């Protein structure tokens, strides 16, 4: 009989691979190491003839598939319920999560997901309803969507909000479609969207998807949009700009109002990527900066789960100029009653809509969580969120800028995230090595190699979640790794040493990905 672990770790990896922490106790039969459990693939533990549910035998009365009937078994693995639960629970123990520790992914705002959010989202009146129920039977849920919408409009100083987009990039698409609809309505065929180098990578992709030609605007040496370069490029062919503010260098675009005024004067619209709204919520209203459309990642700023923990949600706030083009459906309040504006009723007072992006209203479960977060913090609490997030990022920046190169550190404080480069590492060592070392230290690595304007970028966003003690421990880990990277420690070059898998060959994984599991025929034949 063979051990269950046919694909991974590692008896053959030998004593040197057992880590620096202790002596080699020998390989185990199972491949497990106490609570560190090896887990085979579903295909390796499942059987095609097994099933977790008993289904009645079905007799096909009439085969209407013609020649399309499947000839061979699909060979999907079947598992019992406990086998399935154990498989995914075991895998989850090898994963990292915000519930396990500081999650420094820059521009991702991996903040704590309060449990009160979960309690509210599970209330049956919100959780056990169907989007096609009669509106009079879901007045509470529609009221919740409406109240959240009002909060988002108030916090951003904007005229309208489209609640249905499902995540950040979907929100960008919504904003760009609204901009496109506005130009179409004006009979304009503007074809260019300007995107600064310091914008999020999804921005140019969104503009291209909407049929626009994308042109880059360079950044200044300070890491901000080059205002003069942007203004000089404006003209009758420019439909708009997409700007991330605060930007991906962790800096506030101080010229935002001047940029907006110039774009508007040239007949364009301003899209703002609101992924980094956590840095300014309660402090800055994007509407005051002349922004026409901005998505809000509820799964970032408003603490709904993400990163494998739940679906995103990306409502888009719109200026008065773009509000007439907002997508369907949306909730309207009539006295103490809530109505859904859908295709059947939109013609009466929302004829300019560009259409529908999703089947229903959006991510109801995320709306409930986000509103819970907003109400439990209040306006003053949300303001403190931004202040503490910025304070924490600056504490990171100033605690590390003597061991790491902070390219924009000299220009002043950062916003919600601190940016470093690998310029001072030993020959042959790069950001990737420090990131892999961070896995050994028990952290999820920070965002690496983004933004592109910095060599070997390391973008760290602690969020307001973390205490000073948690930050100090993280800082200690980074400082230790930076010293090793600068000294050229060969053990860092081969990190991680303690993870369930050693350093993976990312190049071969991308060049020659193995996407189909093959049964180990050779091994069986040998037995």
């Amino acid at each position: 009989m063979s051990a269950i672990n046919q694909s991974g770790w590692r008896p053959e990896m030998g004593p040197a691979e057992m880590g620096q922490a202790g002596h080699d106790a020998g390989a185990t039969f199972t491949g497990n190491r106490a609570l560190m459990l090896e887990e085979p693939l579903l295909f390796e533990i499942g059987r095609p003839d097994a099933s977790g549910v008993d289904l009645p035998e079905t007799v096909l009365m009439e085969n209407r598939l013609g020649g399309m009937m499947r000839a061979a078994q699909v060979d999907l693995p079947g598992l019992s319920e406990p086998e399935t639960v154990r498989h995914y629970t075991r895998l989850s123990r090898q994963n990292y999560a915000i519930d396990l520790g500081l999650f420094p992914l820059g521009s991702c705002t991996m903040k704590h997901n309060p449990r009160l959010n979960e309690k509210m989202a599970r209330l049956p009146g919100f959780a056990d309803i169907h989007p096609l129920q009669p509106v009079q039977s879901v007045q509470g849920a529609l009221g919740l969507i409406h109240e959240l919408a009002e909060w988002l409009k108030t916090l951003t100083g904007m005229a309208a909000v489209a609640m249905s987009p499902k995540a950040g990039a979907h929100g960008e698409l919504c904003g760009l479609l609204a901009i496109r609809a506005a130009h179409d309505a004006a009979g304009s065929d503007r074809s260019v969207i300007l995107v600064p180098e310091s914008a999020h990578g999804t921005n140019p992709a969104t503009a291209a998807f909407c049929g626009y030609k994308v042109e880059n605007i360079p950044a200044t040496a300070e890491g901000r949009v080059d205002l003069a370069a942007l203004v000089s490029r404006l003209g009758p062919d420019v439909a708009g700009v997409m700007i991330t503010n605060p930007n991906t260098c962790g800096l506030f675009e101080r010229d935002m109002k001047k940029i907006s005024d110039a774009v508007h004067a040239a007949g364009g619209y301003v899209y703002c990527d609101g992924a980094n709204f956590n840095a300014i919520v309660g402090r800055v209203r994007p509407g005051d900066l002349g922004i026409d459309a901005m998505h809000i990642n509820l799964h970032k700023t408003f603490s709904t789960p993400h990163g494998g923990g739940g679906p995103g949600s990306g409502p888009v706030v719109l200026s008065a100029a773009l509000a007439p083009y907002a997508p369907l459906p949306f909730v309207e309040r009539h006295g103490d009653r809530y109505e859904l504006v859908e295709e059947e009723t939109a013609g009466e007072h929302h004829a300019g809509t560009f259409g529908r992006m999703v089947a229903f209203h959006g991510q109801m479960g995320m709306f409930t969580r986000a509103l819970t977060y907003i109400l439990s913090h209040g306006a003053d609490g949300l303001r403190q969120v931004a202040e503490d997030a910025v304070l924490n990022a600056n504490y990171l920046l100033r605690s590390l800028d003597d061991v790491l190169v902070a390219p924009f550190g000299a220009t002043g404080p950062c916003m919600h995230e601190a940016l470093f480069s690998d310029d001072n590492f030993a020959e042959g060592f790069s950001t990737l090595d420090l990131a892999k070392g961070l896995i050994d230290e028990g952290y999820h690595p920070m965002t690496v190699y983004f933004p592109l304007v910095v060599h070997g970028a390391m973008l760290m966003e602690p969020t307001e979640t973390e205490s000073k003690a948690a930050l100090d421990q993280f800082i200690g880990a980074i400082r230790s790794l930076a010293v090793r990277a600068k000294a050229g420690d060969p053990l860092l070059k081969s990190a991680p040493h303690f993870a369930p898998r050693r350093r993976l060959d990312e190049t071969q994984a991308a060049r020659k990905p193995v996407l189909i599991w093959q049964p180990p025929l050779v091994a069986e034949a040998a037995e």
Partner: protein
Amino acid sequence: MTRYFTDEHEWIDVDGGQATVGITDYAQGQLGDIVFVELPAIGAAVTKGGEAAVVESVKAASDVYAPVSGTVTAANDALGDDPSLVNSAPEGEGWFFKLTLADAGELEGLMDAAAYQAFVASL
């Protein structure tokens, strides 16, 4: 045959009205291991400074710009099977595409090898 360079780290070999385009050794070094290359279709019209190809490494996806305007006459299909050619021979076997020049005057303003070396040294 004359080789020119752009400040976006493309090279172009010009031979009469025909030219071959690739990315420089410096560019592949900055990108790291190349895992995918998207090439222009034969017959496609490219404009100077416009996107002509995409190169994807383990670190990032980057646009490759056309050094001059023209019509694409060939694409290096070998990069489909083995994108690592861009790493191993960026200024030879790892070429991206060939084109017919629309306007030889556009070559003015591109760098020669010495100027490009100085440019890279200044980065």
